């Protein structure tokens, strides 16, 4: 019997997850959380390319989410762009900035790279926070909606905003997952994975290490930017917190929690960490305590992340 390739297995699992989950939703509120999970999932798939494939680290990716989000907030006001074009503009801008910043930053390794990306993220946050005549400052600013729901309505098709966003975000995430999975098995993907294992070995077989690191950085920046744009368009409101250090850490933790090396693991990580705060609000003051504990426990006992560790457990049981 031919076994399914990991690529199609992942896609089928994701589609099944997306299609089946709504059957268990007790109210439409859960569609919103679902949409949030898929949006975070998209950003995290980008980080899989950077962290899982190429083995680099970033403590500042929320900065790109911030660029994407504010592109959607400011584009319609200052450039008269429709929201969709603003999203694309944000993605292009993020990619360009990642390319410019990445060239010098990615020469650094380990902790030095961590602090450089951290600094970059904080700079973006500070600009969004301080240029209040443009961005509304810490109070945030309203964002024009996507207008898709109105369009559907005029075509005689009515759908609740939360449901629409659930399916839209799921679709965008699936496209993102497909691209990332294709990349994994392409020559570029192999080059990225080789420099994860050993930069020296990669260089000695003729791989342009700097160039491939930059490619991974730019790709992950674009993913984060599109995710940021979606959050802005869905909430119709945005504040600088989206670019904050804690959001960067959240994205990083989602990536590693589920399993940085695989797309499916990352989506599971996004699901857990997005749903968890909703559950934990019932615990009020214990929220931080439990979150910190989970982060530590998973990283100590399941180093490769939840999904790969559980998969190994299952495989061992089968034998």
């Amino acid at each position, binding site marked *: 019997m031919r076994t399914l390739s990991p690529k199609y297995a992942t896609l089928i699992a994701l589609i099944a997850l997306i299609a089946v989950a709504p059957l268990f939703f007790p109210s439409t509120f859960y569609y919103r959380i679902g949409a949030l999970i898929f949006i975070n999932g998209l950003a995290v798939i980008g980080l899989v390319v950077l962290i899982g494939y190429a083995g680099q680290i970033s403590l500042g990716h929320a900065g790109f989410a911030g660029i994407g989000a504010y592109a959607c907030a400011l584009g319609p006001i200052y450039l008269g762009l429709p929201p969709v074009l603003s999203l694309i503009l944000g993605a292009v801008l993020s990619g360009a900035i990642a390319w410019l910043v990445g060239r010098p930053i990615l020469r*650094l390794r380990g902790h030095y790279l961590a602090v450089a990306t951290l*600094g*970059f993220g904080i700079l973006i946050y500070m600009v969004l926070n301080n240029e209040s005549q443009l961005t509304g400052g810490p109070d945030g600013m309203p964002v024009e909606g996507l207008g898709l729901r109105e369009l559907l309505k005029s075509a005689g098709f009515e759908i609740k905003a939360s449901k629409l966003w659930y399916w839209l975000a799921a679709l965008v995430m699936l496209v993102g997952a497909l691209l990332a999975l294709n990349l994994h098995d392409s020559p570029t993907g192999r080059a990225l994975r080789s420099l994860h294992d050993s930069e020296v070995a990669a260089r000695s077989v003729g791989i342009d290490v700097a160039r491939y690191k930059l490619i991974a950085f730019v790709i992950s920046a674009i993913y984060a930017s599109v995710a940021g744009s979606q959050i802005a368009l869905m909430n119709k409101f945005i504040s600088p917190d989206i670019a904050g250090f804690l959001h960067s850490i959240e994205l990083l933790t989602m990536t590693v929690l589920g399993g940085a090396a695989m797309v499916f693991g990352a989506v599971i990580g996004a699901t857990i960490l997005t749903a968890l705060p909703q559950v934990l609000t019932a615990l009020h003051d214990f929220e931080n305590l439990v*979150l*910190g*504990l989970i982060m*530590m426990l998973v990283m100590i006992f399941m180093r490769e992340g939840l999904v790969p560790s559980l998969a190994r457990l299952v495989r061992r049981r089968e034998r």
Partner: protein
Amino acid sequence: MSELLQFILSGITVGAVYALVALGFTIIFNASGVVNFSQGEFVMLGGMSTVFLLDAGVPMLPAAVAAIVIACAVGITLNKLAIQPARGASVVSLIIITIGASIFLRGAAQIVFDKQLHRFPSFSGDEPFVIGGATILPQSLWVIFGAVAVFTGLYFFFTRSLMGKAVLATANNPLAARLVGVNTNFVMTLSFALSAAIGAFAGVLVTPITLTSYDIGIALALKGFAAAVLGGMGSPFGALVGGLLVGLIEAMTAGYISSDYKDAAAFIVILGVLFVMPHGIFGRATVERV
């Protein structure tokens, strides 16, 4: 002129705190290769514990000592329960573990203590001294001389005592250190205790000036980490220089440009330095073995 002097004085005060946090990073990094992002929580624990012990009627000195001991105990527990079991994990995993620890400690502090802003009285009054037209609080002098004392003490500890040399040996090469009879596990424990004590000490000194609350840790950890990297990860002298530089840059930016961007300026300088010197000012270049 007196304006410049004023900015320098306040920069050195803040910088001394950053230098102490950076020193904590450096000590743990040297012993274990871990960047401990919960370093800022020790500063918080030092300040908050002192506040609550003072409220309970304990006099200043015993309260401060007890606060430092509490932080030490937390540091040792952290090492035993979270860092040692994760030995050999990747840099990213270790960063997430220590950030998790930082969130956990913050969560614990908001339950054990509270969410209010606290301070306690300065050690020797609030009557500022005037130096060349600039003023400085007596408490700032406590912070500066406290930092000087810690750095001097550690210098002698590392260069003159057998235990200090054992720590340095472990930092250089843990396996070789173990072969010549150094108990590297004890060195790890000692490093966490020492870092926690230094952090808590900084917390006790600075609380009368900057106030404290359960959530001050993460910002301090970021600045301390940045300072440690600026100076060169693993170099105590680098931690001192890095800390003072970050403090001075912040004070100058706040004074002459805009206080909104004081946090940004430090990071711009750090990015600039790293582009030219990828291992910080006093860091050693690491050679990768193939």
